[in-house]
Structures are given as C-alpha cells and as structure tokens.
C-alpha cells in the first residue's frame, strides 16, 4: 500500500499511464479553468487571470513536453537499460495526479481578493482592501495543500524517472534536478510566448 502511494510506477507505466496521464492533465485544466488555477510551469501552480479552457490545457501539455524532453535526453545519456519513450512520458503524465487536488480546493475555497490584499499589506501596491478571517483561513489551507501536493508530485516525478530509466547512483538524482530546472525554464519561456500572443 505504502509503495502504491509513493511509487505507483512499479505497477503502472507505458500506454496505460500515458492515457490516464492525459486524462489527468485534461481534468486538471478543466478544474483550473473553473478556479483560475494556472499550471504555469513544470512545478508551478498559481491563481491567475481568467482565460479560455484551451490555455489551461496547453499549460499542462507544455509542462509534460518540457519535463519529458529533458528526462529523455538524460535517459539517453546515462541509462544502460533499454528504456522506452512511452514509459518516460507516460509515467511523467501520470505523476501530475497529486496536483489535481489544488484546483479542486480552489473551487471550494475561492481565493478572491487575497492577492490584492497581500500586495497592499506587504508591498503597498494597489488600493487598501479588507478580507475576512474565513478568507485568510481558506488561503492558509490552500497554501498548505498546494505545498503538500507539489511535494508529492515531485516525489512521483522522481520515482517515475527512476523506474522508467533505471539510472542508478548519484546520476539519477543530479540528472533529475537538472531536468526539472531546465524544464521549468523552458516551460516558463514557452508559456510566456503563449501569454504574449493571448494579450495581443
């Protein structure tokens, strides 16, 4: 059971993981659309502006593309095993599952004016705004759940990479960290291009 929670990839990979992963990304995009939770980077989730559903879906797919790209490159360099592309991509898609809880919480605990409140209180930007204790409690719960979900997703991403590439030792840890950092930069860049064209 513990193994299933922290490393489901001993039991699921390949095309099954990819199909479920695409379904998870699509559902996350739909929930993000209703709660304005943007997956604006490989390991990011932020409350943002309203946007068409397609934007949320593209965010999810770009994140999958970016992380898969770098993990495949490092698998090709370091893996001595006969790894399959569909395992690397499929397990990374499935590893997005823990983050789905955040937009669900976002629907039930809308964050409303919290961003404007924080901006004015701490940075003196914008207009003074008051928020209720309920909103503050909601924001704290949302933040804690986001961080836990994010940590869980990164654990799953690492285990997905470890199982699908079978790289061992320090190479697996270093190549994973470097892949996440490079994928984060690339996804941020690609998404900024998309946001730029959306605002035209």
């Amino acid at each position, binding site marked *: 059971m513990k193994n299933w929670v922290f490393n489901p990839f001993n039991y699921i990979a390949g095309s099954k993981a990819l199909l479920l992963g695409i379904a998870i990304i699509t559902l996350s995009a739909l929930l993000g659309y209703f709660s304005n939770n943007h997956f604006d980077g490989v390991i990011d989730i932020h409350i943002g502006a309203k946007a068409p559903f397609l934007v949320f879906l593209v965010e999810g797919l770009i994140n999958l593309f970016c992380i898969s790209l770098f993990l495949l490159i490092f698998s090709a360099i370091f893996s001595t095993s006969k790894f399959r592309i569909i395992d690397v991509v499929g397990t990374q898609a499935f590893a997005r599952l823990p983050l789905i809880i955040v937009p669900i919480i976002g629907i039930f605990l809308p964050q409303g004016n919290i961003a404007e409140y924080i901006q004015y209180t701490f940075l003196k930007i914008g207009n003074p705004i008051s928020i209720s204790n309920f909103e503050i409690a909601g924001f704290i719960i949302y933040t804690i759940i986001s961080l836990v979900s994010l940590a869980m997703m990164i654990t799953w991403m690492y285990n997905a990479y470890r199982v699908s590439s*079978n790289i061992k030792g320090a190479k697996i840890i270093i190549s994973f960290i470097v892949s996440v950092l490079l994928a984060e930069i690339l996804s941020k860049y690609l998404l900024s291009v998309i946001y730029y064209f959306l605002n035209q």
Partner: protein
Amino acid sequence: MLKKLPVTCPSCNSKLKVKSLICKDCETVIEGIYELPLLALMNNKEQEFIISFIKHSGSLKEMAKEMNLSYPTVRNLLDDIIANVKSTEANLKNNNINNQ
C-alpha cells in the same frame, strides 16, 4: 520441503564447489572438484524469474501482466539479474586465474 542448495561458504563467504556426486540407486560416489553452474549460484528469486522468463518466451510484457507489475519494473529486475550474472562470471574468472 525443498532443501535450499547452499552456494556460499558459511565460514568465509566464498563460492562453494561440488566435491562429490552420488547415484541413489547403486550408491556409486564420484569425487572431484566441480564448479556449480552459474544458474545454481543465483538466489531463489532470480532463478524463479529466469524460469518465468523462459516460460513466457522472453516476453517481459507477458511477465509484467502475470506479476501485476509495470513493464519497466520487470525490465529493471532483468537488468539487475544481468548485472549479477556479469559480476559472478567476472568473479569466477578471477578465481580461476588466481587458482592457476
């Protein structure tokens, strides 16, 4: 109960060799120093994996289905066995060179 074949020395951890073989019918005993075959040097789990691999005509996909594991997990188990075989072969080779 199926008795487990000991392959390593409980005293010094070296690989054991076969010293004598016996015919259960006529009780003829043959003595000499024989190497255990490579497969016999593997642990039970590895031997079971190899037998299952043969039974499934080398299809890791079929094995994964039967073992309720993902394909890469089964392939990783095979990778571990391959690494173990290579290291055992190298050790045996080194031992033979040292003994000569």
